[in-house]
């Protein structure tokens, strides 16, 4: 009986989606806003990647709020999972069969440095090509996850991570306030020279903010992953 209702609800949703797809006409021109962004980001900000330009400068305040959401999640997951202190099972007592296999350990030794290097590359390449702080931070955190799977005894230093993360946040907000003082507004990237389009050091403050974002996101995600381990 319940299955029938589930199926009915699903079919109704499917019908709505099907009408949406059938009625959708693929766009053949851009909206005025998109055209403005596509012209202004390379010319005015000096960033090749338009999406990064939008995220870090035009919607910079929104991105700051997003990082605050991530911070809140790291904190709330910590509160939720740490309240039952003392009931943490003794990891040493587990038998060897539950540990990671030889493949995982050796694989992690080979690809872990490459994952971290790739994460740093993605973070610092955000203004030039596909990439940016969030994506690179997620890559770094996935490396941390592999490390924790391959070596379950690794202790993550929460104090160091939270200090790094807070420092990155403080510098991020300071850059934003410098934008009010020296340029057009909060988080305006014109406080640093625009440079040449396509050069590694270019696009004003965007690479700096991107790096700070990457550090913050990487640290926060690592903390979240480590909280789930215990």
């Amino acid at each position, binding site marked *: 009986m319940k299955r029938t209702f589930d199926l009915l609800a699903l079919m109704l949703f499917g019908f709505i989606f099907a009408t949406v797809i059938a009625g959708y006409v693929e766009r053949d021109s851009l909206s005025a806003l998109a055209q403005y962004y596509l*012209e202004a980001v390379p*010319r005015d900000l000096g960033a090749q990647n338009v999406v990064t330009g939008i995220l870090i400068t035009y919607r910079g305040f929104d991105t700051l709020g997003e990082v605050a*959401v991530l911070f809140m999640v790291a904190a709330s997951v910590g509160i939720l*999972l740490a309240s039952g202190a003392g009931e943490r099972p003794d990891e040493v007592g587990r038998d060897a069969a539950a540990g990671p296999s030889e493949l995982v350990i050796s694989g992690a030794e080979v690809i872990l440095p490459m994952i971290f290097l790739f994460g740093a590359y993605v973070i610092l390449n955000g203004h030039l090509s596909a990439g940016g702080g969030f994506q690179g931070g997620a890559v770094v955190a996935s490396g941390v996850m592999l490390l924790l799977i391959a070596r379950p005894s690794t202790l993550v230093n929460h104090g160091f991570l939270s200090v790094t993360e807070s420092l990155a946040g403080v510098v991020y907000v300071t850059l934003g306030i410098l934008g009010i003082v020296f340029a057009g507004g909060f988080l305006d990237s014109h406080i640093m020279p625009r440079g040449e389009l396509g050069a590694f050091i270019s696009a004003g403050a965007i690479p700096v903010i991107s790096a700070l974002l990457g550090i913050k996101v990487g640290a926060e995600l690592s903390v979240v992953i480590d909280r789930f381990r215990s």
Partner: protein
Amino acid sequence: MGLPVSHILLATGFLLVLIGLWGLLTHRNILRIIIGFSLIDTGLHIVMVASGYVTGGTAPIADKALPIGEATLRAVDPVPSALVVTAIVIGFSVTAVMLAFAIRLYDAKKTLSIDAFTESKW
């Protein structure tokens, strides 16, 4: 040419949403419900990206392959892509909090089946 790209993307995204919804409705295990939620999330991201596709468009990155002057003619809409980055982060956050609650619920009842959690049922 066959089907337009954005229609394929829309169909894929909505199909993922439907699969996730089916998982939400039929499974009793909290972890499976969370997986269903993640599928809905991913499907909606694909739908959002699909809505920014412009026929024949390429990635909005102004490099050698896409000179600045041509960007407005050949690039896809960058605004939905920027929004999806935000949506992915929020989706991750919600999933993380849900998983933390699932662990707490398991500690309380030693089971993950939602049939065991009857206190807040109306």
